[in-house]
C-alpha cells in the first residue's frame, strides 16, 4: 500500500520546460544492515523509476541502496501536449506502485 506524492504543474505553455517532483514512501532497506544478533536484514529497495508522458518515456532512474529512504526525485520535462504524466516505481519483492498527474498545455 504505497503512498506517493507527485507534483506537476496543472498548466504550461507548449515548449515550456516544467519541473516534476516525486516522493514515494519506501524504507529502501539496503541489505547491509544487521540485527542486534548479527543476522543480515535482506535488501528491499525500489530499483527502477520511470516517468512516461502520454505513453512516451521521458525520464528513468535506476536506484541502488544508496538512494535515501522515501525516494525523492526532481527532474524536468518539456511540456509538449496536454495529457497525462504517469509514474511507475518497481523493486524487490514484487514492489510496484503507480501514480499519475494531468497537465493542460496551451
Amino acid at each position, binding site marked *: 500500500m504505497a503512498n506517493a*506524492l507527485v507534483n506537476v504543474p496543472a498548466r504550461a505553455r507548449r515548449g515550456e520546460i516544467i519541473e516534476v517532483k516525486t516522493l514515494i514512501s519506501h524504507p529502501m532497506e539496503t541489505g547491509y544492515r544487521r540485527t542486534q544478533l548479527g543476522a543480515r536484514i535482506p535488501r528491499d529497495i525500489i530499483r527502477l523509476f520511470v516517468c512516461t508522458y502520454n505513453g512516451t518515456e521521458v525520464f528513468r532512474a535506476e536506484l541502488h541502496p544508496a538512494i535515501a529512504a522515501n525516494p525523492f526525485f526532481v527532474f524536468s520535462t518539456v511540456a509538449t501536449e496536454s495529457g497525462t504524466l504517469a509514474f511507475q516505481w518497481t523493486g524487490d519483492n514484487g514492489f510496484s506502485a503507480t501514480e499519475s498527474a494531468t497537465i493542460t498545455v496551451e
Partner: protein
Amino acid sequence: MSGRAPHLLAAFSVIALAGATFAGEIPMTERRSGYDFLSRETRAMQDDDTANPGMLAVLEGGALWARKTGAAGRACADCHGDAGASMKGVAARYPAFDATLKRPVNLEQRINRCRADRQQAPPLAYESRELLALTAYVARQSRGLPIDVAIDARTQPFLDNGRAAFYRRQGQLNLACSQCHDDNWGRRLAGNVIPQAHPTGYPVYRLEWQGLGSLQRRLRNCLVGIRAESHEYGAPELVELELFLMWRARGMAIETPGVRP
C-alpha cells in the same frame, strides 16, 4: 506603600503559578526552534510540502481520517467534519488535562480515547504507522499557530513534575536535560548543533530514523543518550515531560511535520 503590596503579591503568585525562572533558563526572546539550527538543505526539505517526507504521513492521515472504522463504523470525519476547521489549534494545546483519567494526556492518547469511546475501535499502537499518520494529520492543522497548553490548578502538579525531570541529573552520565538544552544550546555535540529542545515540529521526520516519529520516541532517544533509565511509551513521566516542554515552548509556532537530523 500599601498600594504596591497587592501588586507585588499578585506578581509573586503569577510567578509561583507559572514557575519561577531557574538559573540558565532561556529568556523568552532568545528561544529558537530546532529549525533555526538546521542546515540550509534540511530547512528546504521542511519548507516544501511537495518535498517534505513527513507529508507522506500527513497524506496517509487524511485518508485514515475519512475511513470508517471500529464496531461503531464511524470515521473521524463523521463527527469532526473537515479537519482543517475542527482540528485547527488542537495540537497546540496538547498535552491537555483529561477529566476522566484525572491527568494530562498527549495527542496520541487523545486519539486513542476517541477511538475507544466514539468508534469502538481498538487503540492504535504507539509509533504505529497509522497512529503517526493520524497524529501528523491532526497536528498539521495547527501549523503556524502558537503553542498554548493550559496550565491551571489541575495541570500545575504535572507541569512541576515535568520541570523537575528536565532539571534533574540522571543516568550514568549524570546529566540533566537543562545542561545541554538550556546551558549549551548552539554548541556542537557529536558534530551536530545542540538545539534548545522545543517540540515545535512533532511528529517529526527525523533523518536518523529515516521516518516519522513522536516526541516520546525522541525523548526515549535522549534518555538512551544520557544512559538513563527509559520509560515505556505512554508513561505518565513522559507525558509530564511533554507538558513541560510544550509549556516551555509556549508561543512558538507549530511546524508539523518538522524535519530534524
